[in-house]
């Protein structure tokens, strides 16, 4: 067994997708941790933005909520949802994080309901800011636990747009040009999207995982590239920093 937990792997893998001198819209939990990790390692000049209005804070401890006062601690601005959502719609936000109960091969997400909308089997929280992040960020990073019930042929409800029906359908629906899911990160692999069909494709498999396992844990067909990369495992520096970022173990287990 590798010497790291799944949450640690997800956090480190997500952090590495983020780039310095870019802006990222984060939620609480793993996205927040990935953002902080990136900022403290390879992306010191990355701007972190929260949907309730916190912009560029120097968070002293991990926030519980995206509206929590920790998100404006020594921030450069404590603004409003109107301001940050407008920024996003206007193209200022490069990366956004998403997750969900179900995902399909085009990266569409369901966080609204399992079963029929009018008589739900399981009622989930709804879009929240997810549809906005998925619609308006330049690139979204989707963090998903992967299994056949979550990687589905057809969502019970399209809460948040990925590439919709694939091809050019996202743009044709009126969503911003060039935007959409960039990476999907599961406990098994990292995925990207084939440029023309916009179908999900393996980008790299995690250390110790084989392609077959990745494919078996999905109800839709995942594309396989000619060459299979292996995800870099978390480094000791990354793991140490994660402990500093989440010392009480809100998301990352205490070592």
């Amino acid at each position, binding site marked *: 067994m590798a010497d790291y937990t799944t949450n640690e792997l997800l956090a480190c893998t997500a952090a590495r997708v983020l780039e310095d001198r870019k802006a990222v819209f984060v939620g609480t939990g793993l996205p927040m941790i990935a953002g902080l990790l990136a900022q403290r390692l390879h992306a010191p000049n990355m701007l972190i933005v929260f949907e*309730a209005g916190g912009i560029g804070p120097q968070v002293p401890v991990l926030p519980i909520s*995206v*509206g929590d006062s920790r998100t404006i601690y020594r921030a450069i601005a404590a603004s*409003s949802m109107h301001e940050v959502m407008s920024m996003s*719609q206007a193209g200022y936000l490069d990366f956004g994080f998403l997750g969900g109960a179900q995902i399909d091969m085009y990266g569409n997400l369901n966080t609204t309901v399992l079963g029929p909308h009018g008589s*739900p089997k399981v009622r989930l929280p*709804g879009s929240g800011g997810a549809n906005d992040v998925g619609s308006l960020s330049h690139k979204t990073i989707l963090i998903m636990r992967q299994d056949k019930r979550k990687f589905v042929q057809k969502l019970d*409800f399209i809460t948040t747009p990925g590439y919709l029906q694939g091809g050019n359908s996202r743009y044709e629906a*009126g969503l911003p040009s060039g935007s959409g899911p960039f990476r999907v990160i599961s406990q098994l692999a990292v995925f990207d999207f084939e440029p023309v069909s916009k179908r999900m494709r393996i980008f790299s498999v995690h250390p110790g995982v084989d392609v077959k396992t990745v494919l078996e844990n999905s109800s839709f067909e995942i594309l396989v590239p000619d060459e299979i990369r292996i995800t870099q495992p978390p480094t000791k520096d990354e793991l140490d920093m994660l402990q500093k970022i989440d010392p009480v173990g809100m998301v990352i287990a205490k070592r």
Partner: protein
Amino acid sequence: MLLQEGKGQLVGWHDPDENRKWVEANKPRDMTDKTMTAQEAVSKYVTDGSYLAMGGFGHVRVSMVMIYEMIRRRKKNLIMAGKTAVHDIDLLIGGGCVDRVEVAYAFAHELRGLSPGGRRAVESGRVKVVSEISNAGYQWRFLAAQMGLPFIPTRAMLGTDTLEKSSAKVIRDPFSGKPICLLPAAYPDVAVIHVPRCDKFGNCQIDGTMVEDFELARAARRLIISTEEIIPNDEIRSKPWLTKIPYFNVDAVVEQKYGSHPCQMPLEYFFDEEHIGEWLDLSKSDEGNQKYMDKYVYGTEDFADYIKLIGGEKKMKELVDVEHLRRPMTAPWLKNKGGE
């Protein structure tokens, strides 16, 4: 030019002309003392069946004093704006006050997990989700209302079931030729916003993020302000650029120190995670729910009484210390976290 029409219920929309007439006839232009008790504010401005929106965000700067009072006064059939409605809607559902919701975000407690009570109510059909929307979409519905417009455009929501179950419409934008989503204005019948300080007329200052309260305050037909503290009008007038909500949007001012407990009041006191944990635990069953209501809501006369019950000044002092980073936070739900 009309490409699509959402099938969700159109909640809280009024023809702009109709709303102008309402504003002209009903909103105060003169500064009068609006201070009253929570009980008076509820009986004056919260009618059964009202469309209600709460200020703040999730568990942050929520007017819990007014939430408890609405439950205590057994308000019924409210339609709730599920705009990051979390603890507020959970309790209102638990108290039997809300039976319909327009959902942007509800039935969950962010990092703390899903809401047992809210989910049970929707899954059993006791509470109906009448329409869906996104967070940005909801606050822009309030912006449209603030501006006295029938709608405001957005480029979000397109192509999704969120739009299909919303009350938005899609047209072809006559400038770009591309499809664009039009969000209908939302004028809540009553909104309740908790602020750190205001004067007796309702002129409010708010530190920290505004979330969507700037727009909501101006969109609501009736606006109840609860405040940690009432300050003299002179303080408002000495720095008028700090006024975030002016008096003429405000119908009632309720002074209540710690009025957001167990939620966070940014820069003042932290979440009471033990209390929130107790609720999350009890609300797993109808019996537990009843137990919580009996103890904390029906069992207390008013919010001051409730604050005594949860531990009084001593408890609040601890939460002040956590907020100011003088003491680490503790939370029962932390035990279940951190692993996979």
